[in-house]
């Protein structure tokens, strides 16, 4: 891992550590809404996925790739997160996580991994 990547990983871990798992951002996420309510396809879900990918608990697969890439970057979740005090730059975290994890991306998508 390059020094730049190591810095990015540290920054991402510091940002996702702010998530309290309060789940207030779940309902406002449009992809959660259109998926008939799958928490993995909400901002909370993506933050947890990124955290556990970086920690090595999860390995990137098609399902995780799908979850990360379906974020619309609409920032509705950030308004909720700000109002609940944590103020995580959720969309930036997801964007940077995509960049960090890009070399490992799986082809395709879908959740039937």
């Amino acid at each position, binding site marked *: 891992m390059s020094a730049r990547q190591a810095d990015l990983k540290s920054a991402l871990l510091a940002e996702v550590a702010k998530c309290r798992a309060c789940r*207030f951002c779940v309902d406002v996420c449009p992809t959660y809404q259109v998926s008939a309510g799958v928490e993995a396809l909400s901002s909370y879900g993506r933050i947890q996925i990124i955290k556990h990918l970086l920690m090595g608990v999860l390995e990137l697969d098609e399902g995780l790739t799908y979850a990360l890439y379906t974020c619309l970057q609409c920032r509705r979740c950030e308004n909720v997160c700000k109002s609940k005090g944590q103020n995580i730059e959720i969309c930036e975290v997801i964007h940077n996580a995509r960049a960090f994890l890009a070399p490992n991306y799986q082809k395709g998508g879908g959740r039937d991994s």
Partner: protein
Amino acid sequence: MRINSKGLAKDLGRIVGQEYVFNDAPTNLVYAKDVMPYDLEEHNLPYAVVRPGDSGQVAEVLRYANQREIPVHTHGSGTSLVGLARPKARGIVLDTARFQDIAIYPERGYFEAGAGVHLAKLRKALAPYRALLPVFPGSEPVATIGGAIAVNTSAHAVDSALGKPGDYVLGLEVVLPSGEVIETGTHSLRRPAGVELTKFMVGSEGVFGIITRVRMRLAPLPATTNIVATFSKTEDILAVVMEMYRRGISPPMFFEYLDESSARIGYSAVGLPEPAGAVAIITMHSDNSVGCRDKSERFLEFLKEADPIDAKILGPGLEWDQIWGSRAEAGNYVYRQGSTFGSEVTPRVDKLLDAFIDTKDFILNLESYAGPQFISFGHIGAPTLHGYAFIPTKDIPSQVKKAITLEVRQKSENINIKYGGCGGEWGLTAQRIDFLKARYQPAYYQLLLNLKKALDPTNILNRGNLEGWL
């Protein structure tokens, strides 16, 4: 026992439809994660998440799981602060999110709601009927009525003013671990006397059955008036609460407090100037506005006897919204600045001050982490005080976080034992088996296990919560 995840998902799909079954890694992970500050372990991760659409499907899932002895963990919104939402054994997570129906019957005097209805949505639906929803957790926008009744949480409400949510429940639809669907209670406003299973299921935290539908009486929304008072120190507010009960003064429906530190953080969060000390935030209630105003003025006079820095009645409006918001957001903004580890202490009311001193003492002298700060707030009129260990960093190893969590839990439970309390808000069973063993006679805990065995002989429902697993 090894479970074939794909086979399990396929079988569950035959019951609820494949579109309502998930066995992918991200979904399993996010349903297992909760507010607990320490990391998930493999045994917390489910094999599949299932979202049944009616009680018949829940029953079929439970029959299926029972035959194969697969644990089933019920999921409302996963907002429990004390580990109730985290599966303790690998199995199926059963999400109640599709139980979304609300039926309001003013002519019958009650309403019914599916277990997955969010409290905020339900309160909004009840508003045109001027009906009270007597559940007030901070997680109201996302917490479910099924979860609230399964825990029987009071949250902000003062029990001796409003009662517990369970006091308003007329009946339930419950799916037993065997797969039988039962109805409890009554359609009458006359609640059953004698042996009746509603009371048994309310607050049972999902270990005896899965609540799928709740029937509650339409209680009239009271008129309210608000009071805010600033005291030079937290102990003065505790003394007011003790004196309120000693004199037999009618308690407010909400009586919150912020200690000196959390008041500064909470006020700053909502754009208010720094308060001069600890803050009491009170909502008086009565049948009508005239009675409420009179009650509030008398309560204000009572407060002034304790020599506050400032005390005043506030009508609805921006200032009250900000002050209530400061209480609601204090915990969130404290967490923003580091890591917090909370306790729920509910002492005998004449021991409130002693319990506060003991709580502060143990938090400032933790063995698992040196030098935490002490911050407290809570529903002091209830009385509940939340003493928090605050550590101004998030960079703490998971195992240390776990040790701090468990130490705070054990020592706060010791205070509850010392001063005769038993919690009243957080649904602590998953983390308090030692408390149950120490607080009551050995027969008490054994009776709980026997009841569990009688209703759930294969121990599929929320397995581990009665055993004290993490």
